[in-house]
């Protein structure tokens, strides 16, 4: 959907000759103030997902001594990725290039002037909208290495990662690259954003190692009120994320919003009841985690499935991610502190595959397996696998290289005393 619109916009803005040659096309490229209004809004909503959304969602889950360090990471990532996206990321992800990577046509946003269009909206809006996706993807990773990674090493990792991992994968799916061309469906970022961040977080958690005292000491979340605020803002902001990925204020956006709402609620309830049954108590962390799992899983599907499909995706995501965070993680023994892999990685995979099953031709133009197009499942798996492999390998290499230069972890004393005081010279009273 998205890269389709993008293609149109590239065609349409390819020059006055093209536009003049085909008035119908030219008309499609005329600015629509309603679409623009919605995309301006969506951009604000997606930015809000990271600051304060992810910042609080994560900040509430760490121990009190690390809360400022945690929200600092989301905030600093937002700033860093913004500048890098402007300098090079947008160009690599969305300007014309090969099958694997975009070109340098928009380096430093060159040529993106006030009249440049992307479909029916100004390209400036499209560029910032996409920037907010690059931001949140990077910010999500910080949950995997919470409470122990050195701030400077984190900035290096995130900065390089956003250029070398995020931009290419965004290009593959939405920018004109091989996954989009192959027909992989990812409406709003199941692979690009969630599998991507989930895998990177897992790799980082493994490379950086477990927190001191992990499994022995009490590492209970210090303030789940913050986490609930964060989860709520993620939910609200996700309307911009999914319905905004229609890049228009139309029926497709409306349906994306509806299925987002339904899948999220279903996943939250699924996690809550699963926990209620297995651990005797429904927890607020559980229901909030379930909601995020649902949001993640409906992301790739949101322009392709209907309300019924959303219900199925939501329930599946709630159960799979619950299992991932409570059973799988224990069994494998890694310390992905805030369960980025269980929620975003597994949730993203669940959603990507089920998109292939449940896609409805009348909604997004592509039928899924239930409508006879079994091949779509394989396409979806192809997209998932490509993302996991590329992201996994490059993230690992990046961390090893950085780790050879700067220690990835803080000292044990810093970890014991808390990042707030030791790294940032501040504390919450």
């Amino acid at each position, binding site marked *: 959907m998205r890269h389709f619109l993008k293609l149109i916009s590239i065609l349409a803005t390819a020059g006055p000759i093209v536009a003049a040659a085909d008035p119908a096309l030219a008309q499609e490229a005329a600015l629509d103030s309603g679409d623009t209004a919605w995309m301006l809004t969506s951009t604000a909503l997606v930015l809000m997902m990271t600051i304060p959304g992810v910042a609080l969602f994560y900040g509430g889950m760490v121990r009190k001594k690390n809360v400022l360090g945690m929200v600092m990471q989301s905030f600093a990532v937002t700033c860093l990725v913004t500048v890098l996206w402007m300098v090079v990321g947008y160009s690599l992800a969305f300007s014309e290039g090969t099958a694997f990577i975009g070109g340098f046509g928009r380096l430093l946003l060159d040529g993106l002037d006030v009249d440049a269009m992307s479909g029916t909206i100004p390209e400036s809006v499209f560029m910032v909208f996409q920037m907010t996706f690059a931001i949140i993807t990077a910010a999500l990773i910080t949950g995997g290495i919470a409470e122990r990674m050195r701030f400077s090493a984190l900035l290096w990792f995130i900065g390089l990662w956003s250029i070398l991992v995020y931009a290419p994968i965004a290009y593959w799916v939405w920018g004109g690259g091989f996954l989009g061309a192959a027909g992989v469906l990812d409406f709003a970022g199941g692979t690009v954003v969630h599998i991507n961040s989930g895998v990177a977080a897992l790799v980082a958690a493994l490379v950086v190692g477990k927190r001191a005292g992990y499994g022995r000491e*009490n*590492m*209970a*979340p210090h303030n789940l009120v913050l986490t609930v605020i964060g989860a709520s803002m993620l939910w609200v902001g996700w309307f911009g994320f999914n319905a905004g990925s229609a890049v228009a204020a139309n029926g497709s956006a409306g349906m994306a919003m509806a299925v987002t709402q339904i899948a999220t609620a279903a996943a939250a309830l699924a996690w809550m009841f699963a926990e209620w049954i297995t651990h005797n*108590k429904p927890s607020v962390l559980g229901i909030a*985690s379930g909601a995020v799992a649902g949001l993640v899983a409906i992301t790739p599907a949101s322009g392709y499935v209907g309300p019924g499909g959303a219900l199925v995706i939501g329930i599946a995501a709630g159960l799979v991610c619950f299992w991932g*965070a409570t059973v799988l*993680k224990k069994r494998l023994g890694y310390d992905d502190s805030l369960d980025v892999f269980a929620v975003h990685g597994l949730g993203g995979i669940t959603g990507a595959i089920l998109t292939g099953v449940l896609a409805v031709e009348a909604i997004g133009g592509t039928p899924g397996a239930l409508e006879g197009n079994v091949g779509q499942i394989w396409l979806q798996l192809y997209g998932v696998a490509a993302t996991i492999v590329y992201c996994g390998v490059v993230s690992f290499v990046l961390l090893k290289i950085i780790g050879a230069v700067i220690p990835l972890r803080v000292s044990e004393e810093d970890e014991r005393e808390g990042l707030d005081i030791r790294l940032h010279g501040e504390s919450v009273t």
Partner: protein
Amino acid sequence: MKIVMAIIKPYKLDEVREALVELGVEGLTVTEVKGYGRQKGHTEIYRGAEYDVKFVPKLKIEVAVADELADRAVEAIRDAANTGAIGDGKIFVFDIGQAMRIRTGETGADAL
């Protein structure tokens, strides 16, 4: 003079204070503490992780009294704080050699 120090259940504070005031006690000091004892704590569950919280919230009351009041203060606290349930707490009594009111410099029983 003595200090009577009691560990009690938090919601009993007002009753204990009133009982002491009735005895003629004019001041006391309260601290939030966590107690470990026969009364069990609780378990918290976060995603997969379970944490046994071994400590229970309690209040510690310290009240300095003249020697002759000490036993009655102990009784008064006991009566007010007793619910018959495990975890009601303890009372300890120890001697102090001196007491002074900072504002006036008064010492001894006058300082209390």
